């Protein structure tokens, strides 16, 4: 008899489990489904990279942007958009919830996210300009993708003209040696093959670390001392006072002549983002050279 009882209990448990599984299945089926492949004839863009966001804004495409990353902070109209994470740490589900018709992302870690989302049918576009030429090309590519080819062409042409004009302005003049510090611990600077390095050269300055192993690379403090920069642009949060007190740096021309510039002197987004505001960065750099009599 007890054995019969035990069998009955097991039967009831199994039946209960089956009922629960069935209920669970029905519940999941009843949830609203998002099929990324079916979304939208409508234009819904999610942008993960701030420089792409700036280009789209210039092409008057912000109205179709439904999601951005925290770093996409220019122009100010992006403040009202849904945030899907940080540049290097995006929330995949948050992106999917927005049912994007096109996901714009940068290279590096974002590319891996794009590849994952592509598996779910999200259309992705990877744009990572390494040079001014590639930045201009990116404007055309993005313009074509968002249906603003004509505007993209005119923006691109006018930017190219401005860049030429900026370049011509410093021809034949003294080229001050510029050291740009992007990180303090460890010390990091930029090479000429980086976008920032190219901006320095185009502005009429001479990037002291023209050749490095990587575009953005670790450097040695003693190499900065050896190269004797005329100007230091420091985005590593150290103040000019702290920099001038670093051991061995007090004799550098930039320190002796108080030519150390930090974020408040020149907006880092103008130089570090491969976007259209680089023209402002170039002009500001030239303004600094001119203010020092070069």
């Amino acid at each position, binding site marked *: 008899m007890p054995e019969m009882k035990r069998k009955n209990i097991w039967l009831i448990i199994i039946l209960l489990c089956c009922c629960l599984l069935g209920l669970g299945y029905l519940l999941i089926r009843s949830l609203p489904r998002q099929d990324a492949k079916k979304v939208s004839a409508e234009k819904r863009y999610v942008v993960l990279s701030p420089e792409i966001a700036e280009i789209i804004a210039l092409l008057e495409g912000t109205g179709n942007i439904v999601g951005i990353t925290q770093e996409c902070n220019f122009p100010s109209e992006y403040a009202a958009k849904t945030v899907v994470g940080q540049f290097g740490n995006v929330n995949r589900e948050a992106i999917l919830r927005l049912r994007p018709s096109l996901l714009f992302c940068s290279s590096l870690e974002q590319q891996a996210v794009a590849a994952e989302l592509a598996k779910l049918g999200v259309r992705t576009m990877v744009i990572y300009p390494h040079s001014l030429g590639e930045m201009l090309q990116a404007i055309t590519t993005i313009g074509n993708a968002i249906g603003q080819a004509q505007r993209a062409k005119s923006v691109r042409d006018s930017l190219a003209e401005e860049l030429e004009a900026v370049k011509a302005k410093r021809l034949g003049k003294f080229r001050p040696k510029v050291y740009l510090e992007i990180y303090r*611990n*460890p010390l990091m600077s930029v090479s000429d093959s980086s976008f920032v390095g190219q901006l320095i050269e185009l502005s009429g300055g001479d990037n002291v670390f023209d050749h490095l192993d990587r575009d953005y*690379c670790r450097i*040695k403090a003693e190499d900065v001392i*050896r190269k004797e920069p005329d100007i230091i642009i420091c985005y590593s949060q150290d103040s000019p006072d*702290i920099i001038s007190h670093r*051991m061995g740096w007090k004799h550098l021309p930039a320190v002796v002549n108080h030519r150390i510039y930090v974020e408040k002197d020149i907006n880092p987004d103008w130089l570090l983002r491969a976007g259209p505001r680089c023209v402002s960065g170039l002009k500001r750099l030239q303004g600094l050279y001119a203010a020092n009599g070069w």
Partner: protein
Amino acid sequence: MQQMDGKLNFRQWLYLAGMLVAGLLVGYLYLTAGQPDMGIILDVRLPRLLLTVFTGMSLAAIGSVYQMMLANPLAEPYILGISSGAALGSVLAGLTGLFILMPLFGFMGAMLTMILVWTLAQKKGQFDRTRLLLSGIIAGMFLAAIISLIMYIYQKDTLLILGILMGNLGHIFSVGEFRFFLGCLLVGMGILVMLHRDSLKLDILSSGDLYAASVGLQAHKIRQRLFVLGSLLTGIVVSYAGIIGFVGLIIPHMVRLRVSNNQRLVYLHSLVWGAVFLLLCDFLAMHLTALELPVGVITSFIGCPFFVWLLLKKR
């Protein structure tokens, strides 16, 4: 054969002298490679050399003491969680932009962790060796998890955090910072001398607490003292150089394999071997490739095969 008198015989003198000569040679190369001018030697390379030598000496010395004190061959300066506390302090200072205060925050982190581990290690008001080891490991794991979380959230500062976790001897000193460092160096050297003076007591402790008591030593008090001194020194080192693995674990074992088991001799040789080893590793980290490598990677790359070779040779 164990030498209880702790005096160096001819072969041990030879090892010590050989290491010192090697140290001088590496030191010379370290200062002059690439023909720098005197300004660079004095302002950049000499401070770095001082930090490297001090770090190598301290890590190896603490390793030799902890292995003996905890009767555990896997013990090393970071096992008691102090390094994670120091690293967390430094990371927090770096994230808030207080770069100059990084060593101070690191030191404070080390001290707070030391107090925590100390408290956890008490059993009925008595200091317990096993509890110390366990609470050190747990505290270290907990603090390491916090650092990982910070690294995950503040991805833009990954390099700074990695520099602390993988060791970075390229600290950029301002004049004021360097003076403060010299003060810490002086304190650190004082601690090293004090640890050296406890070598004989450690040798006696290794024969068991009962034997130690029979010769009038209070084992738990000696261990407390060594723990506090070792933690202070670890705090100073990690605050400036980050976490550099392998030196504290391997160097004392290398010395025991080649020189002697006597703690005084192991300690003395560990100081010199540790300094020379780290100097060599940092020299290679700086010059092996155009891009400076993390010194912690080099210490493992050189230390592991060398240690394996020593083990095989001794078998």
